[in-house]
């Protein structure tokens, strides 16, 4: 259950990143290249690109590890996803 929660946070963060990129750049990252996705978001916000990097590395860890996510990892995922989603608040609604 805890890992599903982290997975949802990762996906929420990636989706938020895509919205931020679309809003500012007219494009979002496609495909599986993590570095390109982070570099694209960095053009919009270097700080949020670090949050995306954190989430993508947690996604990598979930893929490699057979162990449940630690409390620390859950907290990191929460903070990074929250900051990415909070960045959406600054976008115009029209």
């Amino acid at each position: 259950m805890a890992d599903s929660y982290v997975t949802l946070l990762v996906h929420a963060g990636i989706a938020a990143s895509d919205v931020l990129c679309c809003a500012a750049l007219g494009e979002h990252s496609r495909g599986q290249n993590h570095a390109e996705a982070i570099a694209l978001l960095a053009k919009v916000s270097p700080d949020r690109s670090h949050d995306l990097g954190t989430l993508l590395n947690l996604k990598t860890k979930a893929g490699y590890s057979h162990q449940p996510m630690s409390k620390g990892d859950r907290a990191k995922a929460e903070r990074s996803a929250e900051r990415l989603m909070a960045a959406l608040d600054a976008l115009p609604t029209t």
Partner: protein
Amino acid sequence: MLLQRPFAAIAPTVDGDVLAVLARSDASFTAGQVHNLMGTYSYSGVAKALARLVAQGTVRSQRIGSTTVYALNREHLAAGAILELAGIRGRFLERLRAAFDQWEPVPVFAALFGSAARGDMAVGSDIDIFIVRPAALEEASDAENAAWSSNVGHLQESVLGWTGNDSRVYEVGERELGRDLVADDPVLASIRREGIPLSGPREFWSVTTHGRTG
């Protein structure tokens, strides 16, 4: 790039891979030996490449009895560049180690693993890096944890710049690793078996699986 085939980064041909083999040592090789060391391409393809390179002067051939042996011509004007390119994998490891040395705190342990470590990368392969985060960071401030995350991010940017490859960082906390976890987890077992250490003690796995003393 394919770390095990550095010449493919500029010229994905059999000639480049032949040069990579010859650049490894000062020894002379028969065409058959070069073919065996390459593990790819046909024998005739390797032989033709050697003939082309001899014609260019980058490779010297010598008849010994009924056999012809080949060696890199280290006096050739291009030899320096050839040796530089052939040594890319070693330089990549040096850069990774130098990058980790600058971190504060340094990782408890870090290693290159996966296809980049095994030498069987395919086009599009990621560079897999395993990092053990110090336990002290769990009680550290948000700023210190952000600095750690920033170091990881910069390392991944650097890897992309140096190689053109995306990277996958598998990071675990020091306290997450235990004897049973290392023994039972297949990915950790493969990292222990095949990983190339980049930071931390080479005896890291022995200490982790047999417990710390003192």
